[in-house]
């Protein structure tokens, strides 16, 4: 036990000896948490809209005013020349163009039938389908009003009223979702990178041999290497949770001791992966690139930025090996929904088994002699 304490003391001394490390370990994650949590929204508002009005009738003016009044749209200009708007879309100044044809009003009154074209910049497909849905909704609403007011058609028209309830987050504040997620990412990245570089650094400078001739036990070595990073990462996590609570007002419905406890196990898992990578590589550069490769995959497949169920099945299956996916789901369930141990025990068991396996692999791979 004493041996381990001496080991931990040495690791801490080394980590903080480089003056750049303090800001890297504490300031960068906190700043990133504060800034990046605001970025992650799919919400569509203020769509830049241009309208081509070839009809210039009362009805088309009415329709235009509907778009003008909508909170989703910013009507940039109304123009009879489609070419002008087309170029603006090409330059990225417009996201949507509504094309009202000639004889729009006339067709509507006489033929009872007309078309309006909606042209959407669809490079971002999901945003485009939302934008398109908004415009169709406005057109539908206008259509209904037109029937009642202009055509005097009494309402035999059937309706289904839908009333939406956004549970757990009635304001749709995306930050309450993102803050715990980004916090998990930051803590994971820092823990993984630091631990992945650690053993291999001793290999590079040659001190590992000196350690290997000492009577230190394997488990003492692994614990001594793991503990400092565990403490640092837990500290970062705690700090992040405080910021989440007091700056972002993230609701913390579930049990905080449960979150802290599982976070502790999760970090052992992350550091175990890092140490394992470290024992596999010969240079810090290698271990860093291997870690980076996996971190990118873990982050982008975790479901934080794009929902997991949209991915193809094989990608969803890959998530069985994705520690971030397990832990983000756990955090979301417990913090935001107040899920209890009984709801999330599967995640906890998965994380624990995974942690034991990775730690075992790291210990096994670390050889005191060849």
């Amino acid at each position, binding site marked *: 036990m004493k041996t381990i304490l001496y*080991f931990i003391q*040495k690791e801490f001394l080394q980590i903080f000896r480089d003056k750049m490390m303090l800001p890297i370990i504490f300031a960068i994650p906190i700043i990133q948490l504060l800034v990046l949590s605001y970025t992650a929204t799919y919400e569509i508002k203020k769509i830049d809209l241009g309208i081509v009005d070839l009809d210039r009738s009362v009805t088309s003016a009415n329709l235009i005013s509907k778009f003008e009044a909508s909170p989703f749209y910013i009507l940039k200009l109304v123009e009879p020349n489609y070419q002008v708007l087309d170029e603006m879309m090409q330059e990225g100044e417009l996201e949507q163009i509504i094309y009202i044809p000639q004889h729009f009003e006339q067709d509507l009154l006489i033929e009872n039938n007309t078309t309006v074209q909606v042209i959407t910049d669809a490079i971002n497909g999901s945003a485009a389908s939302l934008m398109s849905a908004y415009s169709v909704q406005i057109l539908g609403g206008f259509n209904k009003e037109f029937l009642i007011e202009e055509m005097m058609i009494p309402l035999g028209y059937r309706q289904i009223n839908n009333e939406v309830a956004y549970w757990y987050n009635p304001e749709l504040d995306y930050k309450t979702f993102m803050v715990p997620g980004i916090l998990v990412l930051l803590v994971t990245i820092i823990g993984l990178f630091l631990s992945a570089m650690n053993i291999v650094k001793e290999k590079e400078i040659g001190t590992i*041999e000196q350690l290997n001739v*000492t*009577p230190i036990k394997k488990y003492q070595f692994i614990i001594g290497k793991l503990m400092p990073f565990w403490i640092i990462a837990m500290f970062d996590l705690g700090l992040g949770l405080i910021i989440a609570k007091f700056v972002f007002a993230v609701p913390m419905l579930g049990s905080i001791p449960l979150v802290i406890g599982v976070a502790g196990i999760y970090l052992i898992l992350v550091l175990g992966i890092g140490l394992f990578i470290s024992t596999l590589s010969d240079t810090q550069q290698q271990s860093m690139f291997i870690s980076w490769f996996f971190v990118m995959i873990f982050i982008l497949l975790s479901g934080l930025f794009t929902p997991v169920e949209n991915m193809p099945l094989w990608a969803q299956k890959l998530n069985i090996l994705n520690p971030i996916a397990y832990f983000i789901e756990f955090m979301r369930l417990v913090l935001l929904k107040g899920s209890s141990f009984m709801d999330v025990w599967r995640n906890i068991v998965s994380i624990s088994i995974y942690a034991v396996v990775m730690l075992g692999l790291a210990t096994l791979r670390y050889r005191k002699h060849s």
Partner: protein
Amino acid sequence: MENNKKQVVVKDLVKKFGSFVANDHLTFEVNSGEIFGFLGANGAGKTTAIKILCGLSAPTSGEVKVAGFDIYKQREQIKKSIGYMSQKFSLYDDLTIAENIRFYGGIYGLNRQQIKLKTSDYMDSLSLHEYASSRVEELPLGIKQKLSFMVAILHEPPIVFLDEPTGGVDPLTRRQFWEMIYQEAQNGKTIFVTTHYMDEAEYCHRVSIMVDGKIEALDTPAGLKEKFGVDSVEKVFIKLARG
């Protein structure tokens, strides 16, 4: 510790890397309190042998006992009884002298009091007080080497392995270094040292010379010179190395 006890016993030690034989049936013994010089050209297999003796590498076959313990079964006991100073620099560059001593002391199970004592002892004997707060990377090379040696014997092991301890060091420091080695040998420690400075070989009690994985000669420096009819160990070495 009995004086006539053998600290290292090696019989028919073989180490192969694939088809390459790095150590070819080595057989030798090192007595307690002896300074045993392990000579050989670069690539002769010295470092391979020393790594096996320290438990860093496993032999392919043969019998090896260090400090009375068997290399196959009692590796951990051996580690408690040996000190090792590697070719590569073995202290942590980014820690201070005291921090290095405290760390290695802690690993070897010295208590706080002992560590404190050793630290002030080393500071005095190597006159390191002006470097008390500097990191090891800022020390002159000679001092670093001496310090590495002291750290290697921090836990008072009966036997110390030194792998080319004086590489790149000025003649004066080398001399001081060997005085330290003599001092420790007189205190009863067994010293196992590899070097390619032939003048240093003259300081050893006994010298073995390795060529292409084999021990070609093993005797006292005087005995070797007599046997080969030359006036220095260097000439013996050149004769053997040329075949």
